[in-house]
């Protein structure tokens, strides 16, 4: 058996790769899985702060690759989940400090002990991205429903297919249902049809995400958040469960409501 390796990538920066990585990791851990996250954004590490583990770092991934510590020593245990670990990126080096073969070797060492390994890819299509996708069994592309993010996602999906790492799975992050209703935001269907890939999940824009990131507590831990619920559902889908997409419409729609009234008649 052994773990599956998921790489979370996007092309464009700032669309929510790190937030997604942290939340999927926490969601999977809360569902009883053994999970290690790996920050592949060397020089611009952030997964540690989003997970609230920045004060516990002793060693990083480059220390492992260059032999200054054992893999186990660089694995930081999560505060809440005892079977969730983070291997942080180095902050003072650059992407060339590790090679795709190093990533494959680290993941192969982790596989027997884990259920999931989640790699947070840097933005861009250069070395850091190549490192991040090298060991991947599943690649998740994050995009936002706006033109530049969709265009970059398409480019990344093309590269993933050319490298025979496909098919890519899509998460549409920060969908704003009220903008969609006004006709001022691409719909999830628009984005999925344009990119022609499988949709793994839709995460609504949720102002609670900012506050939860401020505290270093991923949003999936907040039971009242729609974004948190969306991430939990994506984690369930990764485990093979058939969970329907959230209804992000936020309202029933007048025709449906009337239809329901007629159907129920005097029964209720």
């Amino acid at each position, binding site marked *: 058996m052994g773990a599956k390796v998921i790489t979370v990538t996007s092309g464009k920066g700032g669309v929510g790769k790190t937030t997604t990585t942290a939340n999927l990791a926490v969601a999977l851990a809360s569902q009883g899985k053994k999970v290690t996250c790996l920050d592949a954004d060397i020089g611009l590490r952030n997964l540690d702060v989003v997970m609230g583990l920045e004060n516990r770092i002793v060693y990083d991934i480059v220390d492992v690759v260059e032999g200054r510590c054992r893999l186990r020593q660089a694995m930081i245990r999560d505060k809440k989940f005892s079977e969730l670990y983070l291997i942080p990126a180095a902050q003072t080096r650059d992407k060339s400090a590790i090679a795709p073969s190093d990533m494959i070797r680290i993941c192969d060492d982790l596989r027997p002990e884990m259920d999931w390994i989640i790699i947070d890819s840097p933005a861009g299509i250069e070395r850091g991205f190549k490192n991040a996708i090298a060991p991947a069994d599943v690649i998740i592309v994050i995009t936002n429903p706006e033109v530049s993010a969709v265009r970059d996602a*398409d480019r990344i999906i093309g590269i993933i297919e050319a490298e025979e790492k496909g098919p890519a799975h899509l998460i549409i992050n920060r969908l704003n249902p009220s903008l969609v209703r006004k*006709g*001022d935001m691409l719909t999830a269907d628009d984005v999925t049809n344009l990119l022609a890939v499988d949709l793994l999940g839709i995460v609504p824009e949720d102002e609670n995400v900012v506050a939860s990131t401020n505290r270093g507590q991923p949003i999936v831990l907040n039971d009242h958040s729609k974004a948190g619920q969306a991430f939990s559902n994506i984690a369930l889908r990764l485990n093979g469960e058939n969970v329907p997409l959230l209804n992000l419409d936020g309202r029933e729609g007048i025709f449906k409501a009337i239809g329901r009234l007629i159907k129920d008649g005097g029964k209720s």
Partner: protein
Amino acid sequence: MSSFMDKLLNRSSSAESARQRLQLVLIHDRANLPPGQIELMKDELIRVISKYVDIDRNKAEIALENEGREQRLTMIIPISQGARRYKG
């Protein structure tokens, strides 16, 4: 409500223009073939094809099409009415 008003007034929404623009941009990105180069290629192809058969140049069309993530280049070249079988 405003999208309903937009439809009523036949005004297209900004999302619709994003969708249409992306559709074109992605087709050209995927093929790594910008629109201007397609026009150059069209002119060149028409010159080559005209050496062998009489064609209706003004009605020739070239397009990049996609089906899922598969891309194809199509060209429609009407042959002139009454063109002889061989030229020259």
